[in-house]
């Protein structure tokens, strides 16, 4: 009995060992090095010097664009994650209904998520181009507009376009996560609720949402991390222009490191971003878990 108990006790860890080793070597170790670098002097040529305490962090937070970049990052994550969750949920509800061509619709839905972000951003860049953009061409041909519209007249609008592309590519992921949750709900629950006179909103609130909460939690946490770290959309569409007004933290630290060659503050920013992510994802998961516990 004892030997079986010991075997059971160690077996899961044994199975986990290869993954843990890979994560340790390829993920944890490099991140620890970035932490070390953030406290080291790094020359513009890329040579790593000695320990300099928090100097890189102080320099990073005193950079003029820091506030704008942090605010942009906040709105970028909030709008992309928030709206793609809402839209993804609605689309998942639709996709869960029985209708002709449902399989094709589901296949099409996955395209934006499966395509490279650089390609997506480049395509959207062409779509909204003033001179040769396909959006203007289509609207002109349909007679909706008389002359081409400049869809990028100011930087807030450019930033909104970037968020829009972010939402477009993120929605399918949420939709599929929620769809998997929806498909696991027992149909008899809805039948019983209907018998009791529950309407659409009541069923949504009392059955659907609680049942898909685990799927939503996973998609939201993953999206917070993905979207926060997303680089290609902003870099391809504006490179943070004008004057870092559309930069997020990730694109800004790239520009700082490889264009301005301020590698120390760039590494410090990357650590700050990592800590913010830890905090956000941790708070979200604990809150959701606590709710589930109380229910």
């Amino acid at each position, binding site marked *: 009995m004892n030997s079986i108990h010991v075997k059971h006790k160690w077996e899961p860890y044994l199975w986990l060992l290869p993954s843990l080793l890979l*994560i340790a070597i*390829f*993920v*944890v170790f*490099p*991140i620890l*090095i*970035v932490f070390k*670098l953030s406290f080291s002097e790094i*020359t*513009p*040529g*890329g*040579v*790593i010097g000695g320990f300099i305490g928090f100097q890189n962090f102080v320099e990073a937070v005193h950079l*003029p664009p820091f506030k704008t970049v942090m605010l942009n990052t906040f709105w970028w994550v909030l709008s992309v994650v928030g709206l793609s969750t809402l839209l993804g949920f609605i689309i998942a509800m639709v996709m869960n209904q029985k209708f002709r061509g449902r399989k094709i619709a589901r296949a099409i839905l996955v395209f934006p998520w499966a395509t490279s972000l650089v390609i997506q951003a480049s395509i959207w860049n062409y779509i909204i181009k*003033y*001179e*040769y953009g396909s959006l203007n061409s289509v609207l002109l041909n349909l007679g909706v507009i008389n002359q081409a519209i*400049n869809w*990028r*007249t*100011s*930087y807030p609008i450019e930033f909104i376009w970037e968020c829009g592309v972010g939402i477009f590519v993120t929605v399918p992921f949420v939709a599929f996560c929620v769809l998997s949750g929806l498909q696991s709900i027992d149909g008899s629950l809805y039948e019983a609720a209907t018998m009791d006179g529950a309407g659409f909103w009541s069923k949504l609130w009392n059955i659907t949402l609680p049942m898909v909460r685990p799927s939503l939690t996973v998609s939201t*946490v*993953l999206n917070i*991390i*993905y979207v926060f*770290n997303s*680089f290609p959309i902003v870099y391809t*569409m*504006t*490179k*943070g*222009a*004008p*004057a870092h*007004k559309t930069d997020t933290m*990730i694109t800004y630290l*790239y*520009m700082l*490191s*490889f*264009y*301005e*060659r*301020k*590698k120390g503050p*760039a590494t410090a920013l*990357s650590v700050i971003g*990592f800590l913010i*992510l*830890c905090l956000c*994802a*941790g708070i*979200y*998961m*604990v809150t959701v*878990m606590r709710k589930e*516990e109380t229910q």
Partner: protein
Amino acid sequence: MKKLLAFLLALVMIFALAACGQTEEKPAEAPAEENAPEAAGDEIVLDVIICQYGPNTNEWFLGSGMNGTNFVAKFEAENPGIKLNLEVVSWNDVHQVVDTRIANNNPPDILNIDTFSEFVPDGLLMPVKDYCPEDLYNDFFPAFIAESVIDDTVWAVPDLASARALFYNVDLLKEAGVEVPTTWAELEDACQALLDYYGGEVYPWGIDMTTDEGQACFAYYAWGNGGGFVDAGGNWALNTPENIEAVEFAVGLVQKGYTNPNPATETRYDLQDMFAAGKLAMLLTTNQLPTYVADKGGNINMATAAIPANEGKTGSSVGVMDRIMVFKDDAAPDQAKRNEAIGKFLKFFYDPENYVGWVSMEGFLPAVNSAVEALVASDPSFGAWLDVLGSCQFYPAAKAEWATVRQGVTTVEQNALIGGDVKEGLDALQAEVAG
């Protein structure tokens, strides 16, 4: 327990996904021996990084773009005992690749890139005289060599250059009855006349204030107003009244509606596309424009002129050059042999038989005298461009703060586009780089 589990789970996910989204380099210090050429018997291996100038670069160096063979194969056949580990890297990635290799104590032996000054203070580069054969050294245009000097030492050699000038669509200007502008006042008049005539169908003037070309934009207008990046003594002089006036003039052209609508995001290539499509009447760009337009299938009747300057000021063409530099390798078993191999590489590269094909392939201008005759013979227009190149001013890339200035002036321009104060921006930049 569940809370702890939640935190741990979140942490693992963040670790995993942060690595996926990570764009910052994660260098590790590696032993110096890694940098040693992999000697196999008497063979010496040179690590070479070349930037991708266009679709033909890779073919020429590694494919079959060199009359059915490639640079590496031909070099190795003619230089037994030297092996090239040559990599063609895109301009978008090259800084990241080089930085990561330096941080790993494994820089390439030979690097082709635009800037070099950031590597000199760390003692990473070798002086050119240590490896460059004297006859080749004397073949470089002296004005080009002078742009790679820090503390009286030459640290890099030019691999090619391009010159900027005003290109205009002859037919568009002729139809509107507009003369080619030579001064800023004439430029504004010409733009207004084109705007009136074409009513927004054609942009009179192209302007690129993107992160890639903002420094060129600064140079066009500052040099045309008696200003510039540095003063006569070579010290940073960014916030001079001439420079402030120049940036305000450039931004004024945008605000008056004379230019393409989004100069902060429309790159030189976007402008060249507009020009090739007959949507843009005038732009300041490189001598490669005719090749670019032809490649795009455009058929534009174009001509060139000097870059307009302010009244009473003398304009200057803008020259841009890239470089080849050599990194030190203290672990190389035989330094003399390594230097000799590098010298052979350079001699082979700049041999007119090879170099002329390389330079003309993407429409660039040469950096050595020995290539001029053959290039002019193959395309007479090169002669005029070589004259322009002779009177060009270059960016002060030898100054250690150049990377900061390059981005800084671009930020000032972009800020001005959205209502920011030019003087304030240039004052702050000057204070940052000059103390």
